């Protein structure tokens, strides 16, 4: 069979210009589904919050919205810096994109670690998953976002290693960057609904 392939006189099909690379199409579909997941969670939260006579419930620790605002700034900065790295890469200067990409990764990791520290403090204060609907929604919505952030950081780290090795394709960077932009842009909505 190998011999048949080797002697096949037919030429290989020429590469085509696609509207969108397959990797990016896949990531767009994934982001669409995840957008609906978060929209559903926020909708449920909005209804339960409207039905409650008091929100946040009495006797429950308050969420640290000021400290999280600073953390939100770090995440937004991470997204903006990745956009700079993305643009630099597209200008055919991949080596110059590695620095901003690493900075974006570090800021994203800072965001996740800060959230983890915040969770530990809230658990110590008695805000647990089962203590009230207020706490349940907080842990489910913010936890779901943290899960996405960790996965996207892993993808970003993978992309950075490939970039350093000179093996990162534009489609791969596009897909990974799209996931990170989603994680960054959905957070302010979650913050406004859950913390404020």
């Amino acid at each position: 069979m190998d011999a048949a392939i080797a002697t096949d006189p037919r030429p290989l099909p020429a590469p085509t210009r696609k509207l969108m690379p397959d990797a990016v199409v896949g990531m767009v579909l994934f982001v669409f589904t995840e957008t609906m997941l978060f929209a559903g969670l926020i909708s449920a939260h909005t209804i339960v919050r409207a039905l409650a006579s008091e929100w946040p419930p009495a006797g429950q620790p308050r969420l640290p919205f000021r400290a999280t605002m600073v953390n939100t700034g770090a995440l937004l900065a991470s997204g903006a810096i990745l956009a700079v790295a993305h643009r630099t890469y597209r200008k055919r200067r991949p080596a110059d994109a590695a620095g901003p990409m690493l900075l974006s990764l570090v800021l994203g990791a800072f965001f996740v670690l800060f959230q983890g520290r915040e969770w530990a403090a809230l658990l110590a204060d008695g805000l647990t998953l089962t203590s009230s609907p207020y706490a349940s929604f907080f842990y489910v919505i913010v936890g779901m976002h943290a899960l996405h952030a960790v996965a996207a950081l892993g993808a970003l780290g993978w992309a950075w290693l490939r970039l350093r090795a000179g093996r990162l394709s534009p489609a791969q960077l596009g897909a990974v960057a799209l996931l990170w932009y989603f994680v960054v842009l959905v957070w302010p909505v979650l913050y406004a609904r859950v913390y404020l």
Partner: protein
Amino acid sequence: MTFRRRIATLVVLLLTLAPELAHACPGCIDLKTKNRVAFFGTTIVLSLLPLGMVGGMAAWLRRRAKKLTSENGDQGPGTPTPGP
């Protein structure tokens, strides 16, 4: 129409008058304005968000296709790229 069919039609019509209002969830029956606004708002968002995303995607692809077509002259997207 036979007598049995007339009776059956009459029974069906009477049955439509029998049920009371049926409410699917606590949000729907609550008379407080805040709850009704929340329920209505989330319904609108959950209905329009997927349509907006698909519509936005379609508009972006259309714009991109036009751009590629203008860059390639008469050739549209999906045409082979020039060789090296």
